[in-house]
């Protein structure tokens, strides 16, 4: 197995995730795309852990999974709050932050 086959797979997943973040209008879909990005990072961590023969990558992959869980929890709570206030979770309607 090449190192690169995993890294490139991760890169492809990452870019698909980036596309999703940019293109999607629905907040839940954006969160899903972020999950894709986080998973691609995990693949990278584990590939490098195997390549370098160290366990640190595994540790950080686990941390990322935990952070992702927290992120989804808070993210969906935010989405619920937004939905309750505006009856919509379309991100392009949330433009209060426009500078």
């Amino acid at each position, binding site marked *: 197995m090449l190192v690169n086959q995993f890294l490139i797979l991760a890169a492809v997943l990452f870019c698909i995730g*980036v596309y999703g*973040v*940019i*293109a*999607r*209008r629905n907040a839940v879909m954006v969160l899903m795309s972020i999950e894709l990005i986080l998973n691609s990072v995990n693949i990278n961590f584990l590939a490098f852990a195997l390549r370098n023969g160290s366990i*640190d990558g595994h540790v950080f992959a686990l941390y990322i999974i935990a952070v992702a869980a927290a992120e989804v929890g808070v993210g969906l709570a935010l989405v619920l709050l937004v939905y309750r206030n505006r009856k919509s979770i379309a*991100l*392009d309607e*949330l*433009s209060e*932050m*426009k*500078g």
Partner: protein
Amino acid sequence: MFAEASTVAHEALSSGWFLEHAFIIPIIPAVAFALIIFFGKKLPMKGSELGILSMLASLVFAVGAALQWINRVNGATEEQFINPVIRSWTWWNSGGFEFGIGQHIDGLSLTILVVVAFISSLVQIYSLEYLRGDRRYTHFFASLTLFSAGMLNMVVAENMIQLILGWEIMGLCSFMLIGHWWEEGANSRAALKAFFTTRTGDIGLLVGTSVLFFSANSWTQEHLGVSGFSIRGLSAWALTGDPSHAAITVGAVALFIACIGKSGQFPLHTWLPDAMAGPTPVSSLLHSSTMVVAGVFLVARLYPVFFEGMNIFGSGVNLITVIGGITIVVAAALAFVQTDIKKVLAYSTVSQLGYMMMGLGAGAWMPAVFHIFTHAFFKACLFLAAGSISHSASHHSFEMKKDMGGLRKFMPITFTTWIISTLALCGVFPFAGFFSKDEIIDNVGHNGYTVFMVVGLVGAFLTAAYMTRATYLTFFGEPRGASAGESHDDHGDAHATHDTHDAHDSHDAHASHGPHESNLLITVPLMILATLALGAGLFNATPFGESWERMTKWVEPRSVVVEDMAHASVGETRGVRTEDTVAPELMMSAAPAATAAGEEAPVGEEPHAAEGEHGAHAESVCGTSTPTTGICYAPQLHHAPFKWAKGAMSVLIVLVGMLISWLISVQMYTKKSGFFVGLTSRNKLLALGYGFLVNKYYLDHLYEKVIVHGIAHPIAKAAYWVNQNILDGIVNGAGLVTRRVAGWVYRNVDQRVVDGAVNGSGAVARGTGNALRPVQSGKVSQYGALLFAAAAVAGLVLIIVNT
């Protein structure tokens, strides 16, 4: 080597319990903060007693440590390097990286510790009365206490990480306290502005710390057994001549950017006057005497890094002096057009901070540190006096022209303390400011920075003039507005709003009885501070001869080449290192162990000045020539000899400034009939200058309108233009071309076969055109696309550069 050292070493430096346990000083207010937050509201005095007690306890500890330090210095010989009392523990340890926490106690940190603890105590006592009945009384004291904990922690910090911790706690508390009355929009905006502006500078702190760490770590680990974050390690490393010039310059400039933000130096000074939206005790403690000197403190703390990085003494000009010099004049000029008494004081603070920076940049380390010391007293006193006026006389207004005037009759104590502090600030002879400010100006000139000496004198003239104007407007002439007993609810001042708070009403009732002196909780701190404003200069009264230069003796680190234990052994064995590499490693492991055990310093660190062989090292000057063996912790600095003629000249300049300003003030504000009234409306040039000053050099316009809008709007406009003209053009053109082609094909080639396909593509093209049209929605997704594309381009650039 070791035996030899112990025979020639001077007697060990004395130490003491307070000195060894100085790390407790910031812990006391930190604990008090937690107690106030959790139990404050249930206590009889709503938590304020905890804050005051903790600050008094810190003060006792700090004074005890300072006395023991003085003892330590007095017990040492003239040539001896006074080792700072350094203790270090592992704070956290992650993935093989170790971060320490501890204390680095020397004259500088003790000076600031005493000042911070002292002023915090007085300000908290003052706040008892000033904020009585406030809605968030407990939170106010909690924030003040947390601020003190952060500041004290920054001052005792043993390494940069600990320093950053304290620095950021201070920034947070500054934000909370400026926005204490956040119901008023202006206050919360000022809080945000202060926070964001200082955060902008703080990027420099992180970058500088990282740059220095990665440059210095291997050297400090090898020679001192400490990490590259350690202040001691960085100081020694900077003076070895070992570091690359680029690394240390980048590190020093980055750190200095943080100092510009925190210490309100030009061009990031704009937040400090706005920060006056906070309660007056906050302005007095954070935004004049303690927090804003953090930047100055950082420069003084890591002085060797700045000394080498900025090439102080190496040339007639460097970044620190330039920024400091500009700040002095720019801020002093702004103080003339302010009508809010606190804003006058705020610009005065900015200007005085400029003096400190300029002094540090020009090699006048000791005068600059001494100016921190004296400035804290008289500026805190001025702010508290302003608070006393607004509290008891002008119905919570700070407008000098509208609501003050003639107050000297009603507030004799406030008036006297104000006058003493003003004279101290202006630098009139027996007052504290003279001994520090004049020393800065004198030393700057002595070190060859003649231009900046002139800048300092101009600044002194301006200071005298604007303080006289403020004094005149406040205390002389006829009472106006609220001071005259008029009550008006909408004086448009942000500070005034808190008197509408429910609990304040009963307390405010007395304001309608006209101006009167404040009560003892306010006047006693004022009197204590005024006494110090009068007498603090005697701690380092250069004009009276060397025996009066106590602070110089106690505080200034001596520029002596120290034979460090680890380093000495490396130096000794350098020639035979290939044969015997064990010895230095053994020695190196011994040094950190001794430090960690809390001992003041390894015995081998004692200097060998008296010894014949090493005598040359003591004479080799740190900073200007690299010591061949041994380590320097402080660069060699010069002191200007005091001349009465020079002192008299600067006092004369100050007096002339006061006189001119007094005469103009009388003409303008009392007689109202002179040449000066309406001068700005008659003379175009003056009007231009006045408008320039009133608008604060248009810096806020620059930041908000030009930079923020300038960056945001053209991008939006360009995107819109691109969309309208190029993308639409392409799409429409494509559609058009397709239709033309389709038409041509339809007419000329085959109507039946290609027909459907061509119509379809035309429709697709038109549909895409419609979809492309609303591109300029300004939404998050576009920013995301831009962000990722920019990241990709940046990656591409990196790849190209690196290959």
